[in-house]
Structures are given as structure tokens and as C-alpha cells.
């Protein structure tokens, strides 16, 4: 069992010794029963840190944000940042290191093993409660999640496997391998679902059904870009498809601005949203570390993680490639093997 006091103590120590400028972690928030991200500056703040199955966010996103801020800051603070990281989060840091986004010494990884659990999927919980809200969510230490339902105050215990996030059910590495310290026991097999289970299930239905499903999903997309905004790998200064940030420097010519390619339109149509999501998926091939954040934040609950895990599965099965496992390796798409599949080519 992870003792949150140890995490607090470690974080406080880092801050006290001045080894980091801040520690990214989780705290109880005012908005919901789920934990929210926090950035600790003072050692005394460490007491607010929490660790439980409601710590959903992949905080590696804030390493990216910090780097972006420092890059434009007139007085950049380049001291390392401490970060509380689950197994998937640490792989995200791995990919960011592989892509030279920052250096290993820029980050102190406070690894926390998910042990036998994982995090709760708020939508699954919502489905269980048919849209009602949970006011408190705790893990009972075995295989159950205790939930207090808002409004009538009902307390229910839901089997963990019914409300844990899909990625946790399929998790292959619940313990951060890239770390400076790890809290909690290393538990390899979660024992719920086989890897890529959800994607494999989605593959099983017929082509027409698959399209019917995705057409339905793409059609519902609001293009709020939360999936992109929350993704630590979507750190491009300008998105290739339908960016909401534009790189304009003093040297940017009118032609460059005028000639920005519009691969898809802003309209939230099935077709345009399909281009957006498919591009995101392919651009995350070999980079997505399955933190599932895109799917979690989607307000209309599009199962975006499936697109990414599908490609993760192919990369693993066909190319023996796992994102975030080896920060020295060449990326999935910039490498190849002679024995890569060829039979699909005429």
C-alpha cells in the first residue's frame, strides 16, 4: 500500500533542499470527488498532496507547459521540476525525453506504483450512476470502489473492474520504470484484462458496424480540443490540423500566414472531425503511452483511446515497439526493419 505520507515527505524534502523549483502532484479539489492537479512551491504545501484512484491526470502535461513557459520567459527558471508519476505518466516522460523535449536532469520523477489498482474512469462511474455525480470515491483496498452518490447520499461499493479505466484494466506496466524514487510495491500483472483488450474487442465487429460507431462518435465531437490540450505528446507549437495556436514570429511572412494548410475545416462535421482525430492518432503512433487522458476529458465521451491503443497494439505486435520504454531508441516511424509487414502491398 502506498503511504501518502511518504510521498508528502519526499516532496517536502525536495522543496526544502531546493532540489526542485516545484512539485507537480494531486490534491483534493473543490470541483468534484476526483483529485485535481496542483503545483507545490513551498515544502509546507506538501501536506495537501493526495494519492488514491481519483488521481487521474497525467501530470507530465505540466512539464511540457513549464518548458513552454520557460522558453518565452524573460527570466527562465530552469531548476528541475518534481512530478508525481504513475507508470503511464513515467512513460510519457520517457517519450518526452526520447524526443529531447527536456533533459533527464530537468525532472525528478516521484514514481508511484498503481499496485493492484489504477484509476477510476469517471464516465464509467457516471454510467453506473446514470449521470448522477459521486461526492466521494475511495478504494477499499481489495477489489471494490466505495462511492457516495451526490444528492441522496447513497453509499455503494462497485467492483473495481467495472469502473476502473480501461487502460488500467489492460495495464502492462503499473510501476514507473523511469523514476528517481518509487513508492508502493511493484505489481506486474493487474489480472483484469489482457493488453489491448478494448481495441481487440472493437476490431471484432464488422466493418460497417465499426464505421457506424465511429461515424456516430466523429459526429458528436465538439472540437473543443480537450483531447489535444490534455495530451502531453501534443506539445507541437502549432497543430498540423486545425490549430488553435499559431506560430508567428517577427520573421513570419504574410505568405506563410496566408498559406497555412487547412487539412480540415473548423466545422465540427463528421468528415472534418475524422481528419482531426485520425491525424492525432497517427501522429501519436509510437508516441502515445496510453494514459487515456484524451478519452477521460472528452465531454461527450468519444472512446478516443481506442484509436491510439489500436496503433499501439500494431506497433507492439508488428514492430515490437513500445513507446516510452527506451529513451535511446529511434522513434517508431523513423525506423524500420526488413521484416516489417509487406504482404498488404500489391
Amino acid at each position: 500500500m502506498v503511504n501518502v505520507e511518504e510521498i508528502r515527505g519526499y516532496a517536502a524534502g525536495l522543496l526544502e533542499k531546493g532540489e526542485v523549483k516545484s512539485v507537480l502532484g494531486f490534491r483534493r479539489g473543490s470541483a468534484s470527488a476526483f483529485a485535481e492537479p496542483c503545483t507545490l512551491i513551498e515544502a509546507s504545501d506538501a501536506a495537501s498532496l493526495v494519492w488514491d484512484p481519483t488521481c487521474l491526470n497525467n501530470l507530465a502535461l505540466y512539464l511540457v507547459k513549464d518548458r513552454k513557459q520557460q522558453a518565452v520567459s524573460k527570466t527562465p527558471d530552469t531548476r528541475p521540476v518534481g512530478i508525481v508519476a504513475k507508470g503511464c505518466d513515467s512513460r510519457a516522460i520517457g517519450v518526452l525525453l526520447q524526443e529531447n523535449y527536456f533533459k533527464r536532469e530537468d525532472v525528478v520523477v516521484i514514481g508511484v506504483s498503481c499496485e493492484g489498482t489504477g484509476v477510476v474512469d469517471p464516465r464509467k462511474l457516471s454510467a453506473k450512476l446514470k449521470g448522477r455525480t459521486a461526492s466521494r470515491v475511495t478504494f477499499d483496498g481489495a477489489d471494490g470502489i466505495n462511492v457516495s452518490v451526490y444528492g441522496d447520499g447513497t453509499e455503494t461499493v462497485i467492483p473495481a473492474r467495472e469502473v476502473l479505466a480501461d487502460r488500467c484494466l489492460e495495464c502492462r506496466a503499473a510501476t514507473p520504470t523511469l523514476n528517481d524514487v518509487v513508492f508502493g510495491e511493484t505489481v506486474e500483472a493487474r489480472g483484469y484484462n489482457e493488453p489491448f483488450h478494448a481495441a481487440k474487442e472493437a476490431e471484432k465487429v464488422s466493418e460497417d458496424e465499426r464505421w457506424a460507431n465511429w461515424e456516430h462518435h466523429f459526429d458528436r465531437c465538439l472540437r473543443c480540443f480537450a483531447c489535444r490540450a490534455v495530451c502531453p505528446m501534443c506539445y507541437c507549437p502549432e497543430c498540423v490540423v486545425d490549430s488553435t495556436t499559431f506560430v508567428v514570429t517577427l520573421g513570419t511572412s504574410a505568405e506563410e500566414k496566408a498559406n497555412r494548410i487547412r487539412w480540415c475545416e473548423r466545422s465540427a462535421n463528421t468528415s472534418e472531425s475524422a481528419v482531426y482525430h485520425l491525424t492525432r492518432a497517427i501522429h501519436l503512433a509510437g508516441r502515445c503511452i496510453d494514459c487515456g487522458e484524451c478519452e477521460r476529458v472528452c465531454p461527450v465521451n468519444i472512446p478516443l483511446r481506442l484509436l491510439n491503443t489500436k496503433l499501439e497494439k500494431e506497433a507492439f505486435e508488428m514492430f515490437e515497439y513500445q513507446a516510452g520504454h527506451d529513451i535511446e531508441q529511434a522513434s517508431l516511424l523513423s525506423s524500420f526493419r526488413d521484416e516489417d509487414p509487406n504482404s498488404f502491398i500489391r
Partner: protein
Amino acid sequence: MEKILSQEKLREWVDALDDCEVYAPAFADSVWNFARVKAGADIDLSHTNTIGSVKEFAFPQREVFFCFEKKDGVPVLTPTLPDPKPTVVFGVRPCDGRGMPRNDTVFNKEFEDPYYWARRNKLTLVGLACNQPHSPNCFCQSVGGSPHAEEGLDILMTDLGDRFHVKGVTAKGVEAMERGRDAFDAVSDADQAEVEKVHATSRSHSQRPLGNLDAIAEAIRESFDSPLWADMAQHCIGCGICTFLCPTCHCFDINDEVINPTTGEGERVRTWDNCQFPDFTMHTSGHNPRGDLGSRLRQRVSHKFLYFVENHKTQQCTGCGRCITECPVGIDIIAVLERVGQS
């Protein structure tokens, strides 16, 4: 007009609206959202609140303004004003209902928006009072509303367990009720008493307080240059969830979508836009008056609780709580207002 409608007769009434497009909340993909109701039997009003707000019926995410093409070298513009069938939306929560008059104000003002009004005029909103808050983030009463507010609704229904109390608020609402008149029963005194009791109970549930709204407006004005905004936006990811789901956010973008680059044929299209996106205010030169997340959070909050008040004497927030509940990183407009108020 006030009537009683039994749970079973609800279907009858819906079926009587067969010349209209009827929408009601439906639970699909783990969320409640408005969906087309093909038959009265499909209607289910056990919803909490829908994820999307009712604004999209008058202000859809995509609106084509006109098509352009060239004929003999001269541009020819064909406006595409919508001409929808009369649309009745059931299950509108009072907070969403209160959103609509605020949107009406925006799309009226000095320049009337013909696209909005073409849809809005065909829209009948059937509200459903909230017997209890759906989430800890409901705060309608803190912004001048109530769980059974009628503002903006054409009809207000109140769930009395086995039956609904149905009140026609506007002429349009009464007309919709008339169409299903056979389904309704008269309201007895007992019914009336029960409605009042339910309404009173619903008001009695505690909601998160905001305090004095004038003081908040003043605090926001004073804190324009405060570092608080950047601090509160520290974990903001700059997505569009809060505004897209908001019943009163109305910002939009206009773009030309080219269909045939050779002939120059295309459409001018309005889509939702969002003050949290960096490019929303970015000048072509690259200069951005609201270039950081803090200033954008400030804009969202200021617009709702200061600027809109200054211009239209009311908040542009109806306390639905969506932006709080759905924020992926826990940014809580009530907490934000509290902190601003305290500063």
C-alpha cells in the same frame, strides 16, 4: 395555463406534436444529451442535466451563412437562412432556460442575427424543474435563478412523482400544450399545493454560495491586473469544454470553406469559438491581447460576471455548473470568484 400530465400521458402529448421535431435528453455513451425523439414512447425525463446545453438549437455548432460561387467572373452569394421545422425541446433544465434570454440579447442588440432568430423563433423550450441539484456544482440560486425558474422557458414541467405539473409560460408554450390538450388534466388544489411544496423543497437544498454579485463584479474590475488570474489558470489546459458546454457562451468564428478551388466555390461558415483558445484574439501580426491562460480565464469570468452585467444588467451565468464538473483539471468558477472576491 397550468395542467397536470400523468407519466403515461406524456407520450401522448409528445406524439401530438407530430408536426414538430421533438428533442429530449437521452442517456447514451455514458452521458445525457439531447436527442431526437421519434415517438413519445422513447421519452425519458429521468435525466440529471444534459452535457450539452440547449443553446445549440438556436446557435448550432455550424451555421452556413451563404454559399459563394463565381458566375461569369462575378461572385454570386446565396444566403442559406435556415428554415427549420418547429422544434420542441423537452427536459430543459431551468438553468439552460435562463441561458436563452441572455443569448437572445446577444443576437439581438443593434444588429439582429437572422440565422439565430430563424431557429430561435421556431423553438419551444419545455423546461423541467429540478427537484434536487444534480451535482454539488449546481448554483442557480447563487446567480439569481432557481430550480424552477421559468425565465426563458415556454413551458415549465414539475415532476410530482407519478405525474407532472405543466405550466404554459409563454403563448408559444400554451400553444404546444393546446396541441396535446387531450393528454392533460386539470390542476387540483392538492396538485397546486404539491407543486409549491416540491418547488420549496428544491429551493431548500443547499447550493454553493457566491455572495454579493455586485461585490464580485467590483472585485473583478479591481483585479484586472492581478497575478491571481495566472495562478488560478496554472493548470488550465486551454480547451473549449467550459465554453462549449456553457448555456450562455456564444462566441463564434467565421471561416470560408472552399469546396472547389478551381471554380472558387465555397461556403462562409460560422462555428463555435472559444475565448480560451489562444488564436481567438491573436492578431495576424502575432500580437495577442490575451496571450496567456490567466488573461483568458479572466476574460471568461469577467465577461460573465462583469462586462455582461455592465452591458445588460445581469450575469451571463445561470449556475448550471457544467464548466466546473466537466473541467478536466478542476478549475472551479465558484472557487475562482471566491478568490477574486477575497483579494
